[in-house]
C-alpha cells in the first residue's frame, strides 16, 4: 500500500466533503436543532406567566385561608388570589358553576376546591383552562400539602417535617476511582447527546460516502482511478478523508458548544438549571476521551460497510434499497442505549456491549452510566478494533471485485464468494 497515494485520495475526499453544501448545512443546522430541542425542553420547565388569577373554594376543610397564604407566598408564580371563601354544602354546585364561567370568560385562570377527607384531611382539585404545566401543578401540590401538614402538626414537629419535605434525593456514582456526585442526569445527558452524535454522523456520512462511490462508478471515473491507485488504497483514502471531515465537523461543534457554555449560557435564565445538572461534569475529559475512541473506531467500521455496499451498486436507486443492512447496526446500537442506560449492568447490556457492531453505542453508554470494570471496557475496545480491521479488510475485497463490475448487483452469496477467493 502506497501511503502517499492514500493521502492524495484522502485529501481530495476531505476537500470535496468539507466544501459540499450538505456538510456546511449540517455543520450549522444540527447545533441549531440541539438549541431548538434544548429550548423546547427548557420551555416545558418554564412558567412564562405574567400573573395567575386563582380562587380558593373551601368545601368545609377549614384550611382554605392557610392555603391562600401559602399560594400568595410562592415566589416562582405570580399568583393573585381573586376570591377565597368557605362554601356551604347547598351552594357548592352553584359556586363551582360561577367559577367555571369566570374561567370561560377569561376573568379567572383557575380555582382550587378543597373537599374534606377522612384520611388526609383534605383532597384538592384544580380546575383551570391550562392544566399541562408541570411547574404550576407541582407548586400547587406542595402548597396544599403544606397547608394540610400545618393543620395537623405544630412547633418542632412541623419544622422537622418541613425540612424532610424539602430534601431532594442526592445521587452519587460509585466507581473504581472513587465517588462522584451528580449521578444520573450527568450520565444521561452526555450519553444521549454523544451517542446521538455518533448516530447522526455515521448515518449521514456513511450514506454520503456510499452515494459518492456510486457516482464515481456510474461516471466511470473509477476506471481512471483504479490502476493509478489500488482498490484498497482508494478505499482507505476515502475512509480517512471522510473521517477527517467528520472530525472537523465535530471540532466545529465542540468549539460552538464551548462558546455557548462559556459566553452565551451564563447570560440566560435557564443556565442555572443546566449548571445544576452539571454540564461540565457531563462532558468531562474522561467522557470525551472515551467518546473519541468509540467515535473513531465506530465511525470507520460503519462507514466502511457503507463503502462496500456502495461499490456493489450501479445507481443511486439501487443503493437506496441496498443500504439498509449497513444502517441496521447503527439503528439497533443507538436505540439499545436507552435500555443500556437504565440497566447498565444487566446481562443483555453486557452482551450488547461486547458485540462490536453495537459496542460504539452500548459500551460507551455503560462506561458513562455505570463505570464497569476496566478490563471489560478495554476488551470491548479491543474487539471493536479487531472488527474494524476485519471490516476494512472484507470491504476492500468486496470493493476490489465489485468496483469495476456493472450490471447485476452481486447477491449475498456472490459477496461471500468474493470474500473467500479475492
Amino acid at each position, binding site marked *: 500500500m502506497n501511503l502517499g497515494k492514500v493521502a*492524495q485520495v484522502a485529501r*481530495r475526499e476531505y476537500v470535496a466533503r468539507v466544501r459540499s453544501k450538505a456538510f456546511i448545512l449540517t455543520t450549522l443546522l444540527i447545533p441549531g436543532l440541539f438549541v431548538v430541542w434544548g429550548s423546547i425542553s427548557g420551555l416545558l420547565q418554564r412558567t412564562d406567566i405574567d400573573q395567575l388569577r386563582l380562587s380558593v373554594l373551601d368545601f368545609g376543610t377549614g384550611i382554605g385561608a392557610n392555603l391562600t397564604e401559602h399560594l400568595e407566598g410562592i415566589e416562582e408564580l405570580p399568583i393573585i388570589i381573586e376570591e377565597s371563601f368557605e362554601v356551604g354544602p347547598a351552594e357548592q354546585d352553584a359556586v363551582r358553576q360561577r367559577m367555571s364561567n369566570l374561567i370561560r370568560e377569561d376573568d379567572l385562570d383557575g380555582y382550587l376546591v378543597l373537599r374534606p377527607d377522612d384520611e388526609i384531611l383534605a383532597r384538592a382539585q384544580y380546575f383551570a383552562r391550562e392544566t399541562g404545566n408541570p411547574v404550576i401543578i407541582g407548586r400547587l401540590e406542595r402548597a396544599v400539602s403544606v397547608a394540610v401538614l400545618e393543620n395537623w402538626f405544630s412547633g418542632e414537629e412541623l419544622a422537622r417535617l418541613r425540612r424532610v419535605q424539602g430534601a431532594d434525593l442526592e445521587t452519587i456514582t460509585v466507581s473504581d476511582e472513587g465517588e462522584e456526585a451528580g449521578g444520573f442526569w450527568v450520565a444521561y445527558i452526555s450519553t444521549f447527546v454523544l451517542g446521538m452524535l455518533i448516530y447522526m454522523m455515521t448515518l449521514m456520512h456513511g450514506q454520503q460516502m456510499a452515494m459518492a462511490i456510486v457516482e464515481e462508478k456510474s*461516471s*466511470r*471515473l473509477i476506471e481512471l482511478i483504479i490502476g*493509478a491507485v489500488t482498490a484498497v488504497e482508494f478505499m482507505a483514502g476515502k475512509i480517512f478523508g471522510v473521517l477527517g471531515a467528520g472530525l472537523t465537523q465535530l471540532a466545529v461543534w465542540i468549539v460552538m458548544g464551548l462558546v455557548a457554555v462559556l459566553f452565551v449560557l451564563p447570560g440566560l435564565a435557564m443556565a442555572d438549571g443546566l449548571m445544576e445538572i452539571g454540564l461540565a461534569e457531563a462532558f468531562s475529559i474522561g467522557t470525551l476521551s472515551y467518546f473519541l475512541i468509540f467515535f473513531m473506531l465506530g465511525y470507520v467500521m460503519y462507514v466502511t460497510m457503507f463503502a462496500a455496499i456502495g461499490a456493489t451498486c450501479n445507481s443511486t436507486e439501487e443503493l437506496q434499497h441496498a443500504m439498509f443492512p449497513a444502517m441496521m447496526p447503527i439503528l439497533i446500537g443507538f436505540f439499545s442505549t436507552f435500555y443500556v442506560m437504565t440497566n447498565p449492568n444487566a446481562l443483555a447490556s453486557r452482551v450488547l456491549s461486547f458485540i462490536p457492531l453495537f459496542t460504539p453505542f452500548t459500551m460507551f453508554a455503560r462506561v458513562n452510566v455505570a463505570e464497569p470494570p476496566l478490563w471489560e471496557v478495554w476488551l470491548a475496545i479491543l474487539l471493536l478494533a479487531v472488527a474494524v480491521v476485519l471490516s476494512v479488510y472484507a470491504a476492500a475485497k468486496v470493493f476490489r471485485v465489485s468496483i469495476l463490475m456493472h450490471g447485476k448487483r452481486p447477491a449475498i452469496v456472490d459477496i461471500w464468494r468474493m470474500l473467500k477467493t479475492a
Partner: protein
Amino acid sequence: MPAEAALRCEHLVKTFDTTRAVDDLSLEVSPGQIFGLLGPNGSGKTTTIRIGLGIYVPDGGSLLVLGHRDPLEVRDRLGYLPEERGLYPRMRIDEQLAFLGTIRGLPFREAKRRAGTWLENLGLAENAKSQTNELSKGMQQKVQFAAAVIHEPDLLVLDEPFSGLDPVNTRLLKDLILEQKTRGATVVLSTHRMDQVEQMCESICLIHEGQAVLTGKLDEIRASYGKSTVRLDYDGDASSLEGLSGVREVRDSGRSASLLMEPAADPQEVLRQLLDRVRVRSFSLEEPSVEDIFLDKVGYDPRHEATS
C-alpha cells in the same frame, strides 16, 4: 530482439464467468511508436488494455509492461484515456487535473502547476475554476486527455480517443497524440476509425474473439496482401457489380467500390467486364486499406452492431 518492448503480452487469458474475453492473446508493442489496437466491439480490446494497465489480473499468460511483470510497479509511468469518459461532475477542473496527476505520482504542487499549464495550452484557462458539468463535451474530452498525460507517461493507452469529436477537435487531438510520440512516449491507440489508424499507426494488432488474428507492421501487412484490390469509381447500378468473374468480394459504397480479387485473377479481365456493365470513372490497383483487411479478417456480418 531490438529494444525492450514497451508492452508484451504472451498467451494472455481472461475469463469472466463463462465468457472468455481474452483467449491466448499475444502481442508486442515496440517503444516509441504509435500502435493500433483494432477489433470489433466485444472482441476483447478493452479487457486486454485493462490487463496491461493492471486493472485486471489475467487468469493465465505472461505480461511485461515497461520491463516489469506487474503493471502496478510502473503504474506512475502509465497513462490511460478510458473509452467511457469520467470526471467528477462537481469538482473544479484544475483541481481535478491536479488530483489525477497526484495519484499518478506527481507531488501536489507540481501537479497543480502542470494542470494550470495544460489548461492554458488547451485554451481552457478561463474555465479552470468551472465544474465539469459546466463545460461542453469537447472541452471535457480535452480535459480528459490532459488527465491521461499530465504525469508524462512512458506508455500511453488511448481507448477510442476520437469518438464523438468534431473535425476540429479530432485534428487537435491528433496533434496532441503526435506530441506525445515526439516526447518519446509509446502510444497504444484502440479505435474503430480505420482512417486514423492508416494515418498514425506504424504497427497494428487486430483482435477478434479474444485472439490476435493479425499483428505486425502496417506496411508489411498491407504488402503481404499485394496489389490485389481494385479501387473503382463508377456511375451505374450497384447490382451490375455482382457476379464478376475473378472477384471474390465486392464492397460497394454507391459511387465507388472495392473489389477484392481472387489470387490468380487478371485485373485486365476484371476491367473488361466492368466496361460492359457500368461507366468507369477511375480504376486503380492497390494494396488493401486497413478497412478492407479488417473486414476480410473479421468477416462482414450485417447483423453486427455498428461501431459504438
